[in-house]
């Protein structure tokens, strides 16, 4: 297998960045959903691209993996309307 393991210095920078972002979440963003999720997405991108080395794989692999996963996760957002329906019409709409 061709090695694409990066170097220790970049791994250490990513490690510190992920931990620093975790501290930002805990100390400054508690209770703020969109800010928390935005930071989590940045952490996830760092982990996938540098720890999992997807950034140095072939672009076709990224194309095969990322859009499909994002499509599923974006489509899951359709549930929110129903959760609000339960909130205002509970126990259930007749």
């Amino acid at each position: 297998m061709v090695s694409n393991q990066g170097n220790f210095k970049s791994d250490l920078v990513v490690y510190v960045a992920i931990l620093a972002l975790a501290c930002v979440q805990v100390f400054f963003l508690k209770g703020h959903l969109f800010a928390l999720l935005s930071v989590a997405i940045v952490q996830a991108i760092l982990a996938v691209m540098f720890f999992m080395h997807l950034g140095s794989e072939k672009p076709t692999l990224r194309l095969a993996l990322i859009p499909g996963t994002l499509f599923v996760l974006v489509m899951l957002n359709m549930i929110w309307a129903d959760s609000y329906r339960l909130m205002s019409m509970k126990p259930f709409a007749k």
Partner: protein
Amino acid sequence: MSEADLSMGHGAGVMETRPFSIPSKKLVMWLFIISDACTFGAMLFAYGYVKNAAADWPHPFESASIMNALFMTFVLVTSSLTILMGVRQAKAGNKSKAIQWTFITIVLGLAFAALHLKEWMGLIHGGVRLFQNPWGSPIFGASFFAITGLHLAHVVSGAVALLVVILGYKWGRYNSDDLEIWGLYWHFVDLVWMFVVPMVYLMNAKA
């Protein structure tokens, strides 16, 4: 290539190129990871759904629990760094260092599991059960234990898999590629935790 060519040996040495220029087992791990990402995604969405639909969702996590979650993050992200070190040493042919770093990763994974169980026990002693708790919506316990339990199962099974792979690597059954592939899984477990902490802990912190 026709059957005649094959029977005459014309196909000897001709192999289909590897998809995406990676070994098949690495591709399989990536496919497993994206399917598992969708599973965790669905669980977190379901969690958001029931939380959104409940008028009295509890916020039980005090600062001690939040700091424990932050420490667990530190342990898990550090274990990601140590498995990277292990894989790098394995690729460089330094077998003893690779084994050493992977064992450190396994110990960190088990430490994470112990911290997680401590958190669980605290909640159970506080009266949280699958379908009841002292604070509000009864489904809080089921959703909390389902998400964190699934993640905990991934951590424990990942630690067991790394143990099997590193022992196999030590005895010559597996190679550095196998360690790299299970390293991918370990990073994924770390990645999922990055979403569990904000959704489950930080959104339910006691004011």
